[in-house]
């Protein structure tokens, strides 16, 4: 239940912050947000944690790989874009 509150409040905070971003920066915003969604890597580490190898750990490992590509790739792309806006 507490988690649900956190979710709703974070959504409101997100809406409030992001409506203020000018259209020019929408692409970097999107790819940045995209990189953040790779935060699933935390969840992946949690499930891949146990030291005996079973299905859960394998799935978690794959998830870690995917999420890490997402985070690293996403931030690299965003950074390259923001470099272009820097004057």
């Amino acid at each position, binding site marked *: 239940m507490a988690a649900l509150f956190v*979710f709703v409040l*974070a959504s409101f905070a997100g809406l409030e912050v992001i409506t203020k971003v000018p259209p020019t920066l929408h*692409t970097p*915003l999107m790819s940045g947000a*995209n990189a953040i*969604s*790779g935060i*699933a890597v935390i969840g992946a580490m949690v499930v891949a944690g146990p030291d005996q190898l079973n299905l859960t750990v394998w799935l*978690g490992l794959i998830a870690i790989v995917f999420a890490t590509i997402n985070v690293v790739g996403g931030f690299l792309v965003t950074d390259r874009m923001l470099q272009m806006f820097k004057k």
Partner: protein
Amino acid sequence: MTAMPQMVGLLNGLGGAASALVAIAEFYRLLGEGTVPLSAVSTAILGSLIGGVTFTGSAIAFAKLQGLITGKPVSLPGQQIINIILFVCFIVGSGLLLINPLNTTAFLGITAIALVLGLFLVLPIGGGDMPVVISLLNSLSGLAASAAGFVVMNNVLIIAGALVGASGLILTEIMCKGMNRSLPNVLFSAFGGAATGGGSAAADAGDKSIHQIDAEEGAMMLGYARSVVIVPGYGMAVAQAQHSVRELADQLTKKGVDVKYAIHPVAGRMPGHMNVLLAEANVSYSQLHDMDDINPEFERTDVALVIGANDVVNPDAKTDPGSPIYGMPILEVDKAKNTIVIKRSMQPGYAGIDNNLFYRDKTMMYFGSAKEAVAQLVSEIKQL
């Protein structure tokens, strides 16, 4: 940099897949312990649904943008019904799973359905609607991360996911507004397919004449104008013409021409696509203008230069209630004193409809790939 939309699409898919895998992995962990609490089951269902849809949906979006599969809408006969049946199956599967959380067949089944749903959701959507799809998938990948957060009960995940979900939602909303279409309309109408091809407009195109010009005339018009507004579109992105365009603008500015850029919200294949490309070519921020800013300016503009844009400048959207894009806000280049359209051919744009603008007396067509055409204009202007 041109490959940016598909890059974002691909990364997005990986994020979605990771979230789905977390949900699935957690489900199996609990299964191994023998008891799966109801709350965990429901969040695992959500996680695999959103994550699965994001994964396959993004994969298709990537393939479409990369040109691996056709950018045109693809749908099976009775697609809507198939989707509804799949969704009902998903609900039933979820119900079974909620009643008996140890039912792994049901869980695998609904995960497979989620993956298929992702395919069927994006396949019928055409290339021009990609800004909406990309931002929607972005939003979904956030929600998927959030759902994964619920599964493993991790606040960081929930918060970050919710932020991403919210930002994606806003962008989706803005993109839809830019096309004056609702989200369900974009997702389910297979726009631009044979059914809505606007056959009548294309049919009577034959007897209309166009005015064609070459680089020299174009350069004269541009060079001796007082104000020029450049309208870039996806064609500029494909041809990677942004640097040539910047050079053109520089030459014009040197000649004392006032140059501005008009950016339509859905120009290109992702939100803000044109802005990024022009920023890459070092075009100053302050020269870029939104649709609402620039539209009143067209009346005072000598030449509007349309580079690889089509539907976003189609005046039918305002005047012809029968047009499939009627009601979509456009850049009103038809109000400028003259319009030059750089285009590869008379092929209709993404919406598959004819553009009335091209047949107007004030409109000059300059055929060629955006990059070479603009480069020629630049060299001609240098000689003026």
